[in-house]
């Protein structure tokens, strides 16, 4: 096990998981001296009837110590300051004392913003922007993710847009972390297959990158391996049998583990390109991840082949691992990921994209035209995750990877510029 010269690991979030995990929300609130939570969510979640399950689980607790104080179910996908202020106002008027965020990234970011306002007072979120500006414990907050992938319930960052001035305000502080993340299989049961696959592969990417990038550490390694095993072993089954609650829970667990791993060890090339593609062409994050993952591993192969080789075990199981000669394990691992993408592609009747050129929006239009690649590469050069990637990248390198990924052909390893020694952890 590699012990780096120095590492940090922190996961202040309590994880509660299971088929009936929602019922634990109430005792958790009581533990934190809260009685009257406010639920923050978006239309999609509310529309799927998930809020009903959550609120009944909270209210039906023994002794009736907790009850839902208010529900705000109108968080838009690109939430901003105004929404935060609006929700905070509702929170105050209903005298709530804690927050439950049900949903994905946008809901969670909004909830974090609301928590800052209602805990620290005032209406001005600006003064808390930046890293480390929030220095006090905030109100109890519980996150209930409805997709298994983003891992945003484990991150200490919140990004909230100010549409008036057209800026995105980052908030970074350990106190922004939710106190508890509740993973309940009921919350992801109704997720459509395409979304299931992309979020699952998103989590898989987190884990794979956490294991192979610069800031890896023993804790993130352990969690990443566990995550890969859970996801790789279950995703196909769940897509084929959407009602498989055990599988759903395994995916949720895997994504929580992956979230723990990557929020501490950071990620590299795959996310660098992924963020850029999302930013430039609006491709959903999960889709980008599943496309770029094999390329990211391939690009770094000359520096991290020993680590990539180890991924084969959780990805494909011990039999395949033992049967593969040592030197070929890394490439085999990448092949297994490609095969997984292919299988998912088939299982979802083509909705799971394998290559960039396959990515289509709701109207069936290609989302990433080939001439968008330079824009993507340019955006990527401004993404901080590149520093965690074991190998350096410049604009040309990005273009080279993007072109391969667009066409869907494996990377030509000869084109990768190699330099420097192996990485030191």
């Amino acid at each position, binding site marked *: *096990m590699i*012990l*780096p*010269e*120095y*590492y*940090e*690991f*922190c*996961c*202040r*979030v*309590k*994880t*509660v*998981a*299971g*088929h*009936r*995990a929602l019922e*634990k929300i109430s005792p958790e609130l009581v*533990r*934190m*001296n809260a009685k009257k939570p406010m639920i923050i969510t978006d239309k999609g979640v509310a529309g799927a009837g998930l809020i009903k399950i959550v609120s009944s689980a909270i209210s039906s607790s023994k002794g009736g110590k907790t009850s839902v104080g208010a529900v705000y179910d109108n968080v838009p996908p690109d939430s901003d300051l105004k929404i935060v202020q609006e929700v905070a106002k509702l929170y105050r008027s209903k005298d709530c004392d804690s927050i439950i965020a049900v949903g994905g990234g946008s809901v969670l970011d909004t909830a974090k913003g609301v928590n800052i306002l209602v805990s620290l007072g005032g209406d001005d979120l600006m003064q808390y922007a930046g890293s*480390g500006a929030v*220095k*006090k*414990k905030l109100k109890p907050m519980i996150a209930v993710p409805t997709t298994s992938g983003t891992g945003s319930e484990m991150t200490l960052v919140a990004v909230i847009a100010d549409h008036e001035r057209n800026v995105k305000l980052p908030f970074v*502080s*350990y106190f922004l972390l939710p106190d508890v993340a509740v993973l309940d299989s009921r919350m992801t049961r109704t997720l459509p297959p395409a979304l299931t696959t992309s979020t699952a592969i998103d989590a898989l990417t987190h884990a794979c990158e956490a294991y192979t990038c610069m800031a890896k*550490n*023993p*804790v993130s*390694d*352990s*969690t990443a*391996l*566990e*995550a890969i*095993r*859970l996801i790789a*072993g279950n995703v196909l089954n769940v897509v084929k049998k959407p009602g498989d609650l*055990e599988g759903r*829970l*395994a995916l949720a*667990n*895997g994504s*929580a*583990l992956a979230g*723990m791993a990557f929020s501490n060890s950071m990620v590299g090339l795959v996310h660098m390109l992924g963020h850029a593609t999302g930013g430039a062409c609006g491709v959903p994050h999960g889709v980008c991840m599943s496309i770029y993952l094999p390329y990211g591993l391939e690009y770094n192969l000359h520096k991290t082949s020993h680590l990539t080789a*180890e991924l084969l*075990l959780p990805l494909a199981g*011990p*039999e395949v*691992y*033992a049967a593969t000669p040592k030197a070929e394990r890394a490439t085999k691992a990448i092949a297994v990921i490609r095969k997984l993408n292919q299988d998912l592609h088939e299982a979802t009747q083509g909705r799971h994209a394998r290559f960039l050129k396959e990515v289509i929006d709701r109207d069936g239009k290609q989302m990433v035209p080939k001439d968008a690649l330079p824009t993507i590469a340019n955006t990527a050069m401004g993404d901080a995750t590149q520093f965690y990637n074991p190998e350096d990248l410049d604009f040309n390198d990005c273009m080279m990877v993007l072109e391969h990924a667009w066409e869907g052909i494996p990377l030509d390893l000869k084109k990768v510029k190699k330099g420097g020694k192996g990485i030191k952890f």
Partner: protein
Amino acid sequence: MQSPGDYGFFYQAKIMAGTGAMANIPVELDGFDARHPFVLTDKKTSDSGLPRKFVKALGESNTIIGALFDDVPAYSSVSLVKDLAQFFRDRGCDSVVAIGSGPVVDVAKGVNMAVSTGADVLGFEGVNRVPGHLKPLVVVPTAAIKPFDLTGNARIDGRKFSSAFLMPDVIAVDPLMVRGCCTECVLDTAMVSLSHAVEAYLSPSANPLSDAYASMAIRLIAEHLQKSLKRPGNKAASMGMANAAVAAAAAFDNQPVGVVHALGMELSLLTGNAPGLCMGILLPAALEYRRQMKQEARSELLMAMEGFDAYAGTPAGQRGEKGLRSLQLLFSKIAVLPRTLEELRVPRFKADEAIQEALKANPSLKKQDLSAVMGLAMKGVQ
């Protein structure tokens, strides 16, 4: 993979491990709006010059050490906690740093309870009695660190305090501080960590998160124990063992107390032997008992013990067995570890008393299991 079912997992401590870890403490404290730590340690640590290294590492920061109290005795006591809490307030401190292990950390947690709530700590005895978040607590482990210290438990004046709020906020594992002083001390820590990790790993309620930490601890110990015992001062090995202790703490804190821990702690209290020695004898016995009871050993144990190649290279049916054997082999290689409780001179009647006490402290355990494991440990496992 075992089916995890419903579970909860919580380990809030931020782990900072490696070169320069202590130098980062001021930044972490600043994140809590704290600049005035109250530092606790004991004479032994103080004599070895470690607190000086800590002070030096804090150089060039705005942090002012309110007081460096280096007289924590071998037993943590409520009255000391009271006195120190007053001291803490008089100096206007805002956070607690514990350098060391055992009573130092216990007292630090006690002081933190007292100064954060302003109440008598005795009122918080028991499970989940601490009312809310406390002031930031930083633990700087030394070689003698036990996983127990890094959990949400404290033992003051023989009373047990257990609450998630007692968990340290930051653990700074610095190679300057964790170098072992002697084989006995290394063995003690290693055996406690290993017992906690293995028990958490083999627990029926193991979940993926506790597994991740437990397997990390086992793997680090399997890799570093021999070297560490041979050369207690070796940096890499010491860091391996200290990291293992932290990981074992995370796993241990999220799993119910197992037979080895329960018996080991009581035996240690009753006979004064180091807990590591007791657990080091009890663990092989507990594994043997599992085998006798035909309880399946988890195959992943082999992976944690010997790595990927050995795991994958072993046929599926034999992995569990081989993992156990590997663990037993690890034990048999430790020359300084007594093999039986008789060798450790634990009289039978004390062993019986320990079983009674363990049952009293952990009513969920079964008496027949405890007696059987103790019986095997008395005579040793062949």
